[in-house]
């Protein structure tokens, strides 16, 4: 009843091709944006902004980037965090060395830098696939942070490659409270997510999916494999790069390239798997899940410890976290390979009929 599209006629090409063709979808997206832009800033406190909402948005963007590459183009990458590092360092250097460059322009250019690096490391994908490619992207994951630390220029010769993000200033307005940072990140993420949603249904996106489903067949029907795979790597790394810049400027402030390590890459991959491979919405759901799970486990363990007078060794939480992540990944791959996004889809199907039988 709530999700019936019956009676919604599309009478022009524009109406047929719009991004959210069903009225309920449009309303839902608008409501979501209204809540995110107006409701959340009114309700949330600083802890929520800095510890949950901003990281959630930043990692959503990174997961979105990886999802474009893995979910849509079918190329597995374990180097997302390294491309984030490229974005963070590039944004820092652009702000540092190009006087008067607008902040958002430097974020975009940082994304472009990451895209170039990503495309370069995507070159092996032209000859190899699957886990061979995963190993090749591991090379990026180990090489890039090393390079960023070793070459002093990247971090303006600070010790051990640490970069400290400059204050965020747009048109003379400084974004320094958590709520302001949140709104800035939210704007960037929302725009890029819309762009991604649009891109994956365009010719580019359909070419990605064709390559994902079977690259030899895609080649036979005239899709240029080289261009398709490299654009997938470039676009994916662009998103990761912007996410890295936001990570540095809006989330942590001080970044050591080695913080953006393999572990983070895995975490981003987990967001994609749990959220839903090949789904824009899934990237957000996955990021929310992976961001909230450690907090939930922490609370749960503390509760259990007090309730049953357990004497847990320090560090137990992080081990239980590993355990939970691993178990969840296997669980989702077996039970629901399309992740949380698929559950949402099923819910929509149900809502279409509910409460009527037909």
């Amino acid at each position, binding site marked *: 009843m709530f999700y019936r599209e019956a009676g919604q006629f599309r009478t022009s090409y524009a109406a047929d091709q719009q991004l959210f063709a069903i009225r309920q979808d449009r309303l839902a997206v608008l409501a979501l944006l209204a809540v995110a832009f107006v409701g959340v800033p009114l309700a949330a406190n600083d802890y929520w902004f800095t510890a949950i909402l901003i990281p959630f948005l930043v990692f959503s963007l990174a997961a979105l980037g990886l999802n474009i590459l893995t979910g849509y183009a*079918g190329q*597995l990458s374990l180097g997302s965090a390294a491309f984030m590092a490229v974005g963070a360092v590039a944004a820092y250097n652009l702000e540092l060395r190009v006087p008067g460059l607008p902040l958002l322009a430097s974020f975009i250019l940082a994304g472009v830098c990451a895209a170039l690096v990503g495309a370069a490391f995507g*070159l*092996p994908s032209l*000859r*190899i696939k*699957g*886990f*061979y490619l*995963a*190993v*090749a992207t*591991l*090379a990026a994951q*180990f*090489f890039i942070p*090393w390079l960023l630390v*070793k070459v002093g220029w990247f971090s303006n010769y600070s010790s051990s490659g640490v970069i400290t993000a400059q204050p965020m200033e747009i048109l003379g307005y400084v974004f320094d409270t958590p709520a302001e940072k949140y709104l800035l990140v939210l704007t960037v993420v929302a725009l890029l997510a819309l762009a991604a949603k649009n891109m994956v249904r365009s010719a580019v996106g359909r070419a990605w999916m064709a390559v994902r489903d*079977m*690259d*030899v*067949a895609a080649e*036979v029907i005239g899709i240029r494999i080289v261009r398709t795979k490299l654009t997938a790597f470039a676009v994916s790394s662009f998103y990761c790069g912007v996410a890295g810049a936001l990570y540095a400027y809006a989330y942590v402030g001080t970044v050591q390239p080695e913080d953006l390590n*393999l572990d983070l890459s*895995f975490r981003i*991959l*987990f967001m994609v*798997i749990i959220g839903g491979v090949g789904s824009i919405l899934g990237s957000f759901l996955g990021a929310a899940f992976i961001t909230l799970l450690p907090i939930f486990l922490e609370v749960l363990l503390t509760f259990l410890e007090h309730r049953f007078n357990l004497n847990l*060794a320090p*560090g*137990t939480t992080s*081990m*239980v*976290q*590993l*355990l*939970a*992540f*691993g*178990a*969840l*990944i*296997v669980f989702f*791959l*077996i039970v629901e*390979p399309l992740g949380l996004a698929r559950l949402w889809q099923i819910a929509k199907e149900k809502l279409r009929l509910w409460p009527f039988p037909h």
Partner: protein
Amino acid sequence: MQFFFEVLIGGLLAGVMYSLVALGFVLIFKASGVFNFAQGAMVFFAALVFVTLQEKLAAPFWLAFALTLVVMVLVGILTERVVLRPLVNQPQISLFMATIGLAFFVEGAAQLVQLWAFRDISPRPLALGFQDAPIDWLLARFNMLVSRFDAFAALVAGALVAALALFFNKTRVGRALRAVADDHQAALSVGIPLKYIWAIVWSVAGFVALVAGLMWGARSGVQFALTLVALKALPVLILGGFESIAGAIVGGLIIGAAEKLAEVYLGPYVGGGIEGWFAYVLALLFLLVRPEGLFGEKHIDRV
């Protein structure tokens, strides 16, 4: 020149250690086409269980070894049952991601064992009775430093490979394993029990993980960093080919030697620390030239 040989031999022997880990990957890949990312975690887990048994129960070496082996076999069979059997016929990439999940799970479990037994996660020493000291007569005769322990590790690896080769070529189960590796369908149709065979493969991989865990544990202490060693085994596999035991050995030797030589001769020019990524970049370049590895089988894609 003397120094060059010293570095080379040191590198080759370190490479043998990589091969030990890579062997576990090859075994499972050959038999089930699964790239088992969790092998490194299993190495860590095995070493940890062994150390815990030895320290907490004061078990003698052989008893601890046997008990750990039982645990590893159980882990292997459980993995096959719970993780891989439900995923049969899924795309390889899903299986790969499942083993990443498995790796996290096993790492978490291993460290919980450690926390529970020792209340901290500092490296545990593991003694096998071989010091990391130079071999005397080599030092006296050629004035070369070759670690006694590394030489021992090379011997163990050699013995392991010989045993595996015998197992694969001479025993009934081994031949069945090779048949399964060749073609699941054909193997099934001549009456080879696939599930049983997979359980055996995972157990053998558990055994290899145990041996690798003992060697690595004795060398650098039993600690979380052992799982990173498995990551080093990946370029070895790329170089040697995923299907070849010989490839794992040769790949390990090449990576070990190249890594050490690069660190010594190239490192000073770029500021050192290149050991961390050199193997990967080497493998990456190699992939561009020969994607199937030195001994791998060439795959032909059809629509």
